[in-house]
Structures are given as C-alpha cells and as structure tokens.
C-alpha cells in the first residue's frame, strides 16, 4: 500500500512529502526522504523492544504491561521529587499528559531542549525573536546564513526544501540568485557549498557577531584587522552582503548554543538581526533538532507559561534553567525517581548526570532499547510516532503538522501508556 504525503518523524524539518510503501505490515520503500529519514523508516522494525522488560540482579527479564504500569505508578507516587525527562520524540498529546502528570506529582518536567536550544530560549526571553515560517525563506530569501549549523549532516533536506536549492515565488533560479554564508569553527560539509565561508577561531562567535553589529551600525572604524581569526575585509564584505540583501535568513545551530557564552551568543545574533531589520528584511530561525522538540516547548508554554525546565514542587509552575533543568538536577542528585520518555539521556548527558539515573528508580517509555535502558528498572515499549502512532508535531519554525500512523505493529502509544499512568496517579491522589 502506498502512503502519500507522509510526515517524517526524524528532525525538525518535518518534511511532509514522503511516499512510503507498506506491505503486509512492513515498510518496503521510502521515497523523498533523506538518509536519516530513510534509515528511520526502513530499519525501524529491526530494533524495536518487543515487550516490557524489567531489570533483576541477574539480568533483564520480560514483564507484563500490567506489572510495568503498576510499578511505574508506585515509583512515581513514592517519589518526593520525580524528574520527567525527554519528550522530544513523541507527539504533543503525550507531552501534554506529561505536563499534567508533573503538576499532580509536584515533580520537575524537562525536555531535551535544555541540552540543545535551551540557551536560544534564554536569549529570546531577553531580547525576543524576529522569525518567520520556512516558506517565507523559500519564496523570498536571496541571502541565507548558517551559523554554527551543519544542515547537510543534521538536517539533510533543509537546503533543498527550504533554502539554497529550492525555487521560490520571487526566485526562479534560486541556486543562482541566492547567496549562502556559512560560519563555523571547522570546515563542515555545509561550508563546502557556501559562497562565503567564515572560519572563526573557537569561542570567537560573540566577538564576530559584535564586530558585524558594529559595522552594520556604521562603526567599522573601531574594528581591528582581524576578529577571532576573521579578517576585517571579510567582515566588511559580509556586512555589506547582509545589508544589500532583499531578504536575509539567519539559521543557527548548536555551534553557538553550546559554545562558551552560550545564550549571550544567541542574544548577540538576535540583536544583529534586529539591527539589520533597520536596513532590510532579516529573520532568524534556530535549527531545532528532534522532530518535535519545539512541540514540547509549545505545549509546556501554553500549559505552564514556560517552555521547559518547569518545577511544580511549590504547587505552581516555577522555572529557572540552570536550577530546574535536567542535567543540573541529576548532577545535584536531587531527583529521587525518573521517568524518561522518548529520548536517550544516557548517551547525551555528561556521565556524572547519567550515573545518578542508575542510583534511583528510573523507568523508560521508549520504542527502542538504548543506553538509558541500562540505568532503568523498567522499560515499556510503545508505538513510534510517525510510523504506528499519530499526533501533533511542531516544525522548527512553529508550523504544527499532524504526524501520521501508517501501519499497526500492535504497540500501545505514548498517549495510551501515559494516559493510564496519569489516570492511576489521579485516582491515588483523589484528584
């Protein structure tokens, strides 16, 4: 059976033009997807955890779903300060149950945001965010800047669907008419296709952004011959390209959210874009990673007022990243139980944060065994959103798209499992 206009649940490009062929409950062919998308659809079945598993002193053993849910409820109700972490790899409806659950439990809820674009959000909370949907870029932009981002590896169709290679309404021959600037501390694959590549010395992003702001404001006299390894000549040329563009689109990645200065870098980038808007049209978009990491921020915001790292221990939402974010809470050994949903912190957190996961009762709800499994007491496999579960997802630019279910592999969805756990918790708490 051929499924058209399938939405890819890998990265936050959320491409919705895939053609997927299924035959007798397996996926046999995928068209239009990138390497990452292809891989996700075609190898999915090989890696699924088949049934709930439970850790015993002698090793892993299977568990009934009933036992797994009972024990999860028991762990969460018994905890003083549970951490509910992950959420970027599932649909919004499940995320919403997670937030409700954190509220009833008086726990902390955080998503992978805190270790990807959390600093971008902190910067936006200081100075705002001049952005747009990706179609604005596709149809109008004659200049695209990728700063600390490597879309060819992390978002492989970004350039062909939304920026460099796609024709738009006001650009008939986009590839010729659009200029691309890439800024990085290493010559990435994306740098190879740039019209201008700016190689910055490590940690030099803030200085280079400041220099560009100064030039755009007409203060080029004060710029020294080189800034963080970038020549003044190149900086002047770049600033001129930006000012002369009819529509400039600035995309940034973890190359500046994770480097020194963190959110202050992003603040500087946003203020550069503000400044450029006094000369022409310029927008800025974070290259969000997981296909629904932005969805968690949206859901969490309309429910609690804050995009991530929300602590309910006071009976209301409290937000202070650095204190209420997952790595910090684990590093301080503050949480006494953890529920991990749709992410793999053991692979992506510093090891001392990971170690604490193994010292407290941890439960994971995830379709696949992963490194976090090793630190869990229990894992409950669920359907994969976009393959055998449907729901809402938010693209990196905030456009909400309903991700589809194209076959049935007999797994419950995140919404089913979390809904049942939440129901049981409410019952126990007499809510």
């Amino acid at each position, binding site marked *: 059976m051929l499924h058209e206009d399938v939405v890819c649940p890998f990265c936050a490009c959320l491409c919705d033009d895939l053609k997927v062929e299924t035959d007798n409950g397996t996926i046999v062919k995928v068209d239009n997807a990138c390497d990452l998308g292809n*891989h996700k659809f075609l190898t999915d079945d090989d890696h699924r955890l088949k049934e709930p598993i439970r850790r015993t002193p002698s*090793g892993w053993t299977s568990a009934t779903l009933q036992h797994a849910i009972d024990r999860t409820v028991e762990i969460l109700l018994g905890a003083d300060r549970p951490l509910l972490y992950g959420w970027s790899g599932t649909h919004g409806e499940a995320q919403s149950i997670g937030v409700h659950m954190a509220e009833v439990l008086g726990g902390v809820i955080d998503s992978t945001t805190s270790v990807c674009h959390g600093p971008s959000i902190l910067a936006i909370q200081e100075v705002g965010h001049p952005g747009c949907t990706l179609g604005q870029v596709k149809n109008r932009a004659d200049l695209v800047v990728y700063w600390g981002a490597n879309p060819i590896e992390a978002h492989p169709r970004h350039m062909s669907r939304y920026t460099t290679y796609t024709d738009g309404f006001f650009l008939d021959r986009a590839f010729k008419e659009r200029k691309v600037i890439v800024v990085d501390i290493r010559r990435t694959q994306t740098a190879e296709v740039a019209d201008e590549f700016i190689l910055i010395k490590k940690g030099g992003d803030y200085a280079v952004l400041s220099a560009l702001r100064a030039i755009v404001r007409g203060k080029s006299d004060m710029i020294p011959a080189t800034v963080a390894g970038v020549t003044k000549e190149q900086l002047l040329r770049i600033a001129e390209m930006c000012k002369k563009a009819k529509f400039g689109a600035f995309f940034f990645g973890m190359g500046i959210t*994770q480097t020194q200065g963190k959110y202050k870098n992003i603040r500087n980038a946003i203020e550069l874009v503000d400044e450029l808007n006094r000369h022409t049209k310029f927008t800025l978009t974070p290259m969000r990673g997981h296909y629904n990491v932005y969805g968690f921020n949206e859901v969490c915001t309309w429910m609690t007022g804050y995009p991530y790292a929300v602590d309910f221990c006071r009976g209301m939402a409290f937000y202070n990243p650095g204190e209420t974010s997952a790595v910090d809470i684990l590093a301080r050994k503050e949480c006494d139980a953890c529920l991990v949903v749709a992410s793999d912190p053991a692979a992506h*957190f510093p090891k001392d944060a990971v170690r604490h996961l193994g010292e407290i009762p941890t439960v994971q709800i995830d379709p696949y065994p992963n490194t976090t499994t090793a630190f869990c007491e229990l894992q409950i496999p669920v359907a994969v959103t976009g393959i055998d579960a449907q729901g809402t997802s938010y693209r990196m630019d905030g456009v909400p798209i309903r991700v589809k279910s194209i076959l049935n592999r007999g797994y419950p969805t995140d919404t089913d499992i979390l809904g049942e756990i939440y129901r049981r918790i409410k019952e126990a708490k007499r809510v």
Partner: protein
Amino acid sequence: MIFTLNTGRTIQQGNNVEMKYHPDYAKEVSRCHMNPLDMLDLGVMDGERVRVTGPAGSVVMYVVQDETVSHSTVFVPYGIYANQVISTETHGTGMPDFKTTEANLEPTEDSVLTVPELLRALGGMPYVA
C-alpha cells in the same frame, strides 16, 4: 597536549541514534577527529588511539585524520564517549560545555571500550536482545 573538545551531530550518528548497541554506533561516536598537524605534534597516526582526559574523567578514542578540524581543537560526534570527559557544570544555563571542554590528549595502547563496557562502568546493565 590540551585541546578544545567540540562535539556535534553527524549523519552516521543520526542514522544509529535508535540502535545504540550496534557496533556502528560505537564506531561513529568514538572517533576523535584531528587536524593532521596536531596529529604530527601529538605523534599519532590515523586509526591509532588517544586517551582523552577532561574534567569528568577519561576515555580512549580512535584518531581520525580530518583537515576540516582547526588547530588545537578536536571534533567528536556527540554521544556517550565524549560524555565520559564532559562535566555536568552548566554555569547556571542548563547546558553543559559540549563544545568548549578542555581535554588532554595522549597517545595510548589501551583499547577503546565498547558501549556496554562504558555503561557497566557507570553502574548500568546493558540490554541485549
């Protein structure tokens, strides 16, 4: 020799993201990409091993020669190997120093641990179907 450890996404790391026990995953995220001149200074060849020691501890990785990496930095696809040396310090932002950790590199004959070995060292019990 002290280097700045830079981590980031790669296509292979992405492809293996749902199969972390597969040797392909370990192979991808245990690669320490180095500039050839830095390799010369350190006295290592492509495919040899280095011990990378940072604020949180140390781990052995394979050296991969990579002209795109700048002098005095190394690039490691982000994952469990790099996280053996990165500290939990977030400077009040929630974000560890995934791209700016100072690490000491030295050539080593020690072997590169497997993912299950790393997990066990942290008290985990790997799951193998």
